[in-house]
């Protein structure tokens, strides 16, 4: 294969980013082509590379970058089925997002820098996927982190965007520090940072501290892929523009952690303890985030928590030792979650609000955005995991992997011995994944029904805002939309991006349908063992009968539960009685009680007393605030006090002391010559006495 092709894939978007930054401000007409074309070309190149490589092959090329004295750092490519598959996904989603952004951020004055950052981000993700060297991979990993920081803070005028971007940066960096040490440990044990050398060392049993290494790496993975202890940044990251959420926080960047574990799975298989930790992490993440998603009022936050949960599925598959299932779910999730976010962007664009309870009072919202309505429906069905959509097959692959691991016959597909996976990990993942399937179905149904299907008459007895919405026909006053979103939510709707006249410009409509194709059809790729599995490790991705029936049954039960709760909530609302728990919530939502009371929210009935904690993310943020933020702030205040009051006192004291000394010396300068002479004589006498004695 011509090596220029894989080299161009990460290089083109990086060059495009530089060019966009350089000329985008001066020649606005060039910004859009410079943003789209390099990304699209490298997407095509990624596809060409994947086809040329073929299935079952792998390619390793390396050129030494710099001698370090220790293990060398090499500019290395490692191409195999995994990197081919994920690079195609990255190219597809990035191109869709760039096209979509041209319409979504049409009037944004900072569009050039935004597009450049998205291109740079794409380049970094390609670098991570293609890299065969851990240090080079880390470079891409960190570039993604900084791009994510800038893009979340795109609307830096708002306090929420600023603090969200800072939070995302700090939390992911908190994970990256142990990650760096994990890489060092791997490099020291294996004598090389090349991934193939590391894997060979793992196979030969040369790694001295597999559990420590795996746990250190897991910290970085938890930060990047938003797993339980470090997941809090992802819901807040929704302060960024919606296409960024689609690209970074759903399809690609958060997948980097999963991809890394899949790449280094032999290292993790050496340590049963690390796999159990990963399984527990995934289980807590899955169930907690699904409960949170069921209670969120904000469309994008529902999707963000859903992303966290689906990443938990992937981590669970990895904990079960089956990286095929994990990457299968990664790719299908990447497609349908990007689709969900882009469709949500269209809806938010049209509705001028993020809040689904406000959307529920807009008559005819689904008729204004038919494409977004249908594609979002398709993607939600894929998320729930009903056959024959892609989510069904990939989720079943995860469940099957967990089932096999629980039976002690993990589907490691030759990566390691099946006995390397503890059965406990399999059970943890299997049970939590089943529960999450139920919850996922419930929150997806709730979101769809509340946002699009609430009866428009429900708003009639309520408020002037709703009446104004009905009177305005198609558009709601922007002020009403922006004041009605959930109080305390860490961002505001993107008012500057809203243009009611053009709810669905073509540049925003076509990416939806392009992404809908893999959402519907990709799952079939896992059925035949000579298609997708041959590209990966060669195992089977077919769902097994038991898990397929159980998983689908749980999903159907979840849908029915949510539908039933929604029906009864709607009926109560129609009868003029707010939901029983609503009265207790009014004081807390004092800013916008109307939005809370009149929405028929099945989540409240389903979650019961858990609703309030779930809406606030089970207080994890508050806990971190008490555990980390406040002590750090107090320490900063202490340092400030020490600097201001102690160190500066010495500095000021030296000046004051010199002044006082000078004043004392001046006292002796009386001007009387006889006094001087007397002092002189006394000094002479003193000296004489001293010398004589």
């Amino acid at each position, binding site marked *: 294969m011509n090596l220029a092709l894989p080299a161009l894939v990460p290089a083109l978007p990086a060059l495009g980013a530089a060019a966009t930054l350089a000329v985008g401000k001066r020649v606005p007409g060039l910004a859009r082509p410079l943003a789209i074309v390099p990304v699209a070309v490298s997407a095509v190149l990624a596809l060409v590379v994947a086809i040329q490589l073929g299935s079952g092959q792998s390619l390793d090329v390396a050129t030494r970058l710099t001698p370090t004295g220790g293990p060398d750092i090499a500019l290395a490519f490692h191409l195999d089925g995994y990197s081919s598959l994920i690079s195609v996904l990255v190219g597809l989603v990035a191109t869709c997002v760039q096209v979509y952004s041209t319409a979504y951020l049409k009037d944004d004055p900072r569009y050039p820098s935004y597009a450049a950052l998205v291109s740079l981000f794409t380049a970094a993700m390609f670098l991570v996927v293609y890299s065969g060297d851990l240090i080079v991979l880390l470079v891409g990993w960190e570039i993604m982190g900084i791009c994510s920081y800038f893009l979340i803070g795109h609307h830096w005028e708002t306090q929420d965007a600023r603090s969200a971007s800072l939070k995302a940066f700090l939390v992911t960096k908190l994970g990256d520090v142990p990650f760096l040490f994990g890489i060092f440990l791997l490099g020291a044990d294996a004598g090389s940072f090349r991934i193939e050398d590391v894997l060979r060392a793992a196979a030969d049993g040369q790694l001295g501290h597999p559990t420590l290494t795996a746990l250190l790496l897991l910290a970085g993975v938890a930060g990047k892929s938003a797993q339980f202890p470090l997941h809090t940044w992802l819901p807040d990251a929704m302060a960024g523009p919606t296409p960024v959420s689609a690209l970074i926080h759903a399809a690609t960047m958060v997948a980097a952690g999963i991809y890394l574990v899949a790449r280094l799975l032999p290292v993790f298989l050496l340590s049963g303890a690390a796999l159990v930790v990963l399984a527990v992490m995934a289980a807590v993440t899955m169930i907690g985030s699904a409960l949170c998603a069921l209670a969120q009022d904000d469309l994008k936050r529902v999707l963000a928590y859903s992303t966290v949960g689906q990443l938990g599925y992937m981590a669970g598959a990895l904990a079960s030792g089956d990286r095929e299932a994990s990457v299968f779910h990664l790719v299908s999730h990447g497609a349908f979650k990007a689709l969900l976010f882009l469709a949500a962007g269209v809806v938010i664009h049209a509705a001028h609000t993020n809040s689904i309870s406000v959307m529920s009072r807009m008559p005819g919202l689904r008729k204004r955005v038919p494409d977004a309505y249908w594609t979002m429906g398709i993607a939600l069905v894929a998320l729930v995991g009903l056959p024959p959509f892609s989510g069904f097959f990939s989720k079943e692959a995860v469940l099957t992997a967990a089932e096999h691991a629980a039976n002690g016959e993990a589907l490691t597909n030759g990566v390691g011995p099946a006995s390397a996976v503890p059965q406990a990990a399999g059970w943890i993942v299997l049970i939590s994944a089943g529960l999450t399937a139920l919850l996922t179905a419930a929150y997806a149904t709730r979101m769809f029904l509340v946002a699009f299907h609430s009866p428009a008459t429900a708003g009639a007895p309520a408020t002037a805002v709703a009446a104004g919405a009905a009177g305005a026909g198609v558009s709601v006053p922007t002020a009403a939309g922006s004041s009605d979103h959930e109080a305390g939510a860490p961002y505001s709707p993107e008012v500057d991006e809203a243009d009611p006249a053009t709810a669905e410009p073509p540049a925003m409509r076509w990416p939806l349908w392009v992404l809908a194709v893999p959402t519907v059809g990709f799952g079939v790729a896992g059925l035949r063992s000579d298609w997708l599995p041959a590209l990966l490790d060669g195992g089977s991705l077919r769902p097994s009968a038991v898990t397929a029936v159980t998983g689908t049954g749980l999903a159907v039960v979840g849908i029915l539960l949510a539908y039933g709760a929604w029906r009864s909530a709607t009926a109560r609302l129609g009868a003029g009685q707010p939901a029983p728990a609503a009265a207790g919530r009014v004081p807390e939502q004092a800013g916008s009680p109307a939005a809370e009371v009149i929405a028929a929210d099945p989540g409240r009935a389903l979650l019961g007393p858990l609703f309030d904690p779930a809406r606030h993310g089970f207080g994890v943020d508050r806990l971190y605030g008490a555990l980390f933020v406040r002590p750090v702030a107090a320490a900063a205040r202490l340092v400030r006090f020490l600097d201001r009051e102690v160190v500066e006192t010495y500095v000021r004291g030296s000046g004051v002391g010199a002044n006082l000394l000078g*004043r004392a010396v*001046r*006292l002796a*300068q*009386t*001007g*009387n*010559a*006889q006094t001087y*002479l*007397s002092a002189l*004589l006394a000094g002479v006498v003193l000296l004489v006495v001293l010398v004589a004695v």
Partner: protein
Amino acid sequence: MHLAYPAVLAALLFSVGVYGVLARRNVILVLMSVELMLNAVNLNLVAFDVWLRDSLHAGQALTLFTITIAAAEIGLGLAVVLLLFRARGTADIDKVTTLGDPAESTVDIEEAPVGAEALKGRAAA
């Protein structure tokens, strides 16, 4: 003659001179006390010259020099005193402290421009 007589005389003269320099107020008397001290030294020089039987008589020669320089010094000193008296109308050494730097002079310096402006204003009036 025993050396003790001129030595004691010289010590007494010197002591009287020191007392005069440190205690008298009149500048003229201070100058005269300085002369007393110088002459006590001269007496010592001559006495020790004799006592040591110096063939070159260096002590006596040095005394001649001292007398000459003392004459010049007293001329300068009296001139200074004369000018001081003309300028200040006094020859009292306690009153001549202008070159001193008393502690409260910071206040004086800060107030000085005000006084200068007041003077200028008076001159203009």
